[in-house]
């Protein structure tokens, strides 16, 4: 009857569009081709904005694992973004590490932070996580602003551009392509996780914790895995963000940053990967497209977002989440 009658399990994270494998490839190749030529068509200004949008794709896909798959409300996601960026900043500037040597430490720091924050909190009712993560976000920013080693309020500057196999990453276009690659890796990793044993476990636990436990699933462990994987996505984004800008300061990692990423995930549709990607682009490009409106653009944008969320509470991407 159906095209996938031979026992094929639906691909999670897609929604009803793109269930056809051929269509999926066509869309993927078209998007890839667009991303490759974009800097040549548009000027450097738009390339910078697109780079930022791609960074947001990485962050949003990371938070999507936490919020969309595991159903955990994280209000301090920017903290992991900060941990990644500051680890790179501190290790390269204060300790003279090469970017690539510092990079694994950035990931490790995020994993440790994730385990320390998530480990005790995820045992409690889910509501506690929202409060604890909110506090964690503020603590990280407060520390960054007050510690000598993180450069206090002025932050860290002079972070050097990394090179890769002899390729010196330097120009804005270079960084744009770096973020294209990061976003692609984030998308592939998200799909593979969504359609794995762990990915299904996140859905089981989100739908019914008791039934999941009865099926032998350790709900604390599974939630912690989601939280830590989300943290890794955030830290990777933060590390390359630091290298790209060359300078970081506490204000780049504010509560608003966490809210913006969360908004993109909810807007696109939690648990639906194409929707989340779209959400990331809308959050970054939206205010730019409304630039003509001058001072009112953020207001118009915010009202627009509110209306979308009111009328499409499960996000703009069609289909139910997780399906």
């Amino acid at each position, binding site marked *: 009857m159906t095209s996938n009658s031979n*026992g094929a*399990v639906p691909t999670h994270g897609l929604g009803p569009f793109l269930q056809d494998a051929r269509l999926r490839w066509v869309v993927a190749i078209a998007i890839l081709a667009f991303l490759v030529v974009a800097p040549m068509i548009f000027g450097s200004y738009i390339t910078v904005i697109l780079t930022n949008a791609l960074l947001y794709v990485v962050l949003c896909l990371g938070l999507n694992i936490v919020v969309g798959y595991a159903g955990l409300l994280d209000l301090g996601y920017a903290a992991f973004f900060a941990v990644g960026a500051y680890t790179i900043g501190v290790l390269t500037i204060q300790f003279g590490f090469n970017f690539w040597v510092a990079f694994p430490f950035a990931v490790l720091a995020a994993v440790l932070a994730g385990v320390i924050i998530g480990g005790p909190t995820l045992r409690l009712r889910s509501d506690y996580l929202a409060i604890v993560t909110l506090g964690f976000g503020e603590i990280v920013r407060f520390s960054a602003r007050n510690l000598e080693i993180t450069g206090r309020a002025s932050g860290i500057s002079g972070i050097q551009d990394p090179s890769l196999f002899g390729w010196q990453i330097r120009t804005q276009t270079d960084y744009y392509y770096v973020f294209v690659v990061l976003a692609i890796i984030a998308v592939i990793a998200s799909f593979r*996780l969504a359609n*794995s044993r762990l990915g299904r476990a996140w859905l089981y636990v989100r739908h019914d914790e008791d039934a*999941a436990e009865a099926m032998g*699933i350790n709900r604390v462990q599974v939630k912690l895995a989601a939280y830590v*994987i989300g943290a890794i996505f955030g830290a990777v984004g933060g590390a390359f963000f630091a290298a790209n800008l060359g300078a970081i300061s506490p204000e780049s990692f504010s509560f608003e940053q966490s809210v913006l990423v969360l908004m993109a995930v909810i807007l696109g549709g939690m648990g639906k990967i194409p929707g989340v990607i779209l959400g990331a682009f809308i959050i970054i490009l939206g205010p730019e497209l409304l630039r003509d409106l001058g001072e009112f653009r953020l207001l118009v944008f915010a009202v627009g977002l509110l209306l979308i969320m009111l009328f499409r509470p499960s996000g703009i991407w069609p289909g139910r989440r997780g399906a």
Partner: protein
Amino acid sequence: MADNQLLALSGVTLAFAGNTVLDDVNFSIPRDAIVSLIGPNGAGKTSLFNSITGFYKPQGGSVRFDGQELLKLKPHQVTASGIARTFQNVRLFREMTVLENVMSGMHCRTKSGALAAVLRLPSQQREEAEIRAFSEECLAFVGIADEANREATTLAYGHQRRVEIARALATKPKLLLLDEPAAGLNSGEKVALTELIARIRNELGISVLLIEHDMGLVMKISERISVLDHGKMIAEGTAKDIQNDPKVIEAYLGQDDGEGQS
């Protein structure tokens, strides 16, 4: 002697805010048996299931399963040790297919993690195939293989109950706890359920503990029956013993309504 018991509860006591729900319960299940637990509404049957499976924490007593103490274990650890259960009210995972629901049972029998999934390691791919194959086998066993790709919660009620049983079988248990599996089924479905329970024990070698209000089904299938009333075990024996036990008759007659019989 104790060794031929698969599960042995002794002195299990459970209270909520001073309200004693299980009172010094002693109860055991032999290996390879089909045992029923009956009793009037509110007797504490489901609470006994929840105490065995780690959802409730009894204040005292011991629950030994296959040589292991279960009382301090979390529900997922109890499942991993070899006890699977269904719920009195069907609790399938929404927005997921029948097959995916059943695949949840294989979680504790497999181990691929995040990195293996992201890198698509051969071991992970093999395990995924194994999870699907065994889950499909479980579905075929309960007789709903052709519904594998439907959304589980859209199935007819009787089939949803079978998905729950298939899901429990996918955990590869030694003991299966069924909480009122016949509730809401028509007589034809009850006959099929009776056969299914017999096959689970006879073909798969899994012991079954059944909570059930349908006395016809209980008397027909059980090798042993235990009766719980107000948190106390008041009788234990064969169908004949139980039917003639004055304490049991009194427990059921003392009920407000006749829901115990059907």
